[in-house]
């Protein structure tokens, strides 16, 4: 097959499998929002969201089959985004600390 692609063509059944998992997780997260898990509600929702996003990134966006550099680039973006969020939030959280 004359292709300049990394060489790897992902089989359609993998795509369908990932699609099915994503749909199931969507239903799961909607259902979980009606349950009362206290502090865990947002945690469950975010865990499911991160899992779904990872599946899309690894399989639909082919990162699993791409050079390491791509994963590093994504990692950098997420790292600096987390700096924005963590350091900003830490200001708000510590505003009313005493002593």
């Amino acid at each position, binding site marked *: 097959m004359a292709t300049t692609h990394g060489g790897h063509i992902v089989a359609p059944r993998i795509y369908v499998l990932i699609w099915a998992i994503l749909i199931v997780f969507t239903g799961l997260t909607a259902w979980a929002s009606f349950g009362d898990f206290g502090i865990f509600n947002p945690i469950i929702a975010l865990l499911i969201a991160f899992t779904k996003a990872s599946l899309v990134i690894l399989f639909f966006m082919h990162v699993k089959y791409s050079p390491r550099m791509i994963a590093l680039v994504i990692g950098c973006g997420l790292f600096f985004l987390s700096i924005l969020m963590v*350091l*900003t939030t830490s*200001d*708000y959280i510590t*505003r009313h*600390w005493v002593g």
Partner: protein
Amino acid sequence: MSTATISPAALEMPRDTYLNASYGVKSWFLTKDHKRIAIMYLVSITSFFLYGGLMAIMMRLELLTPQPDLFQSDVYNKLFSMHGITMVFFFLVPSIPAVLGNFVLPMMIGARDLAFPKVNLASWYIFMIGACFTFSAYISGGVDTGWTFYTPLSTGYLNTHVVAAALGVMIAGFASIFTGLNFIVTTHRMRAPGMTWFRLPLFVWSMYAVSVVQVLATPVLAITLILVAVERAFHIGIFNPALGGDPVLFQHMFWFYSHPAVYIMILPGFGVISEIIPCFSRKRIFGYSAVAFSSMAIGVFGFLVWAHHMFVAGISTYSALVFSLLTFIIAIPSAIKVFNWTATMYKGSIHFDTPMLYALGFIGLFTIGGLTGLFLAAIGVDMHVTATYFVVAHFHYVMVGGMLLAYLAGLHFWWPKITGKMYPEAAAKLAALITFIGFNLTFFPQFVLGYMGMPRRYHSYPPEYQVLNVLSSAGASVLAVGLLMPMFYMLWSLKYGEVAGKNPYRATGLEWTTDSPPPAHNFHETPVVTQEAYDYESLLQEEVEVG
């Protein structure tokens, strides 16, 4: 007086260059050649610089006397706002990357062009469109928010053209993102055979670090300015306390970009200095890896210090402490560079050509600016001098004494490569001296003024501050002369300058192996690199053998 130049036997301009490869307006405005795009940026940012400079002249005229006699306060607010916006976003941020980086980077790595030439051209158009938006705001009455667009003043209490100015800056930000993207990919993937990462000139390392910062930080500015525009237009309350919003959140988001932005402005300057010092000391750079890694470290750490602009804004004490500590730490990689440049010069054979004069000025002035940054990093000191002329002096020392001098150094250094002609050395040296003197006369008194308590962004002041203000304004007129001179003699040199030849400074680096001006595709044949960067020892060896 010894220089590094060879006495040319009768040098001629090369026959086929990027300048005469094609003629006509379309061949420039639809070019994909990174060298032509660099020239277009050069013309644009020089024009914007003149406008920003005009604003500064008017401000310094007003500040000659304690009374507000030239301008009303809201007009004065517009002057410093337009000065800041123009100088930061439309001159300093693009200066070295878009002009010198665009021209020289592909040649330094042995490539025929950048990775995405059409994106490069689009980047210039986007920059100009942004400028149109912002300048339309200037023309239709000006903007008076300060370059910092603080809310809720900018979103709810002014009736100037804030939206147009903010959108213009946002759009110009995308130009900077595309340039950064281009440089990153080019550096990774377009290096000539044998050009490994650790054989790269340090200018390339600093361009790479800058590009990473641009790509990560600028989008946050974009969304922040969009929020300001939307809030102004639709009266929502993201940053407006009356509607439940938090103005400090604006400051967090704004400075998350704008602090790395100052590193976007200075890192390319570091790169230029790292090229010039070895060349005019005829010596390999001291500590190549340290300088390369410190560029990356500054890029990364630059993202961790933004709230040092917000110590008095109402952030938590603990948060302030963390940011203060991080700000002290970030001084270290910059200091490493200064030590390495100095060590490079030690026992070198110093030639005081114009680029070297600017580079030496840079080292001294940047050090002063950087050290005063440390004063500001200490919360206790910052409490007293924040929002005074101390801060103004600090950032002008690093931005003008540092960055602008580095830009001028680089422009003089690569001018022969860009145009094929030498500028007149005597005039250039004189201009450098005048600039140095004018600069210090303008801004050193401002440290004292700030320490004595004169606030920034005010057009009137108590009479006891007048002497220092007059000194500062006098210095500004000298500085203006020093900065205008290069515009004249460089244009003069295009027609009457001495032909430069391939390598008038006998510098190392691939860009000096090709013609001046270079052919359209940079090299007649793809170079293969077999030696380390800054191999001045071998050059010295040859000179000894020949002479």
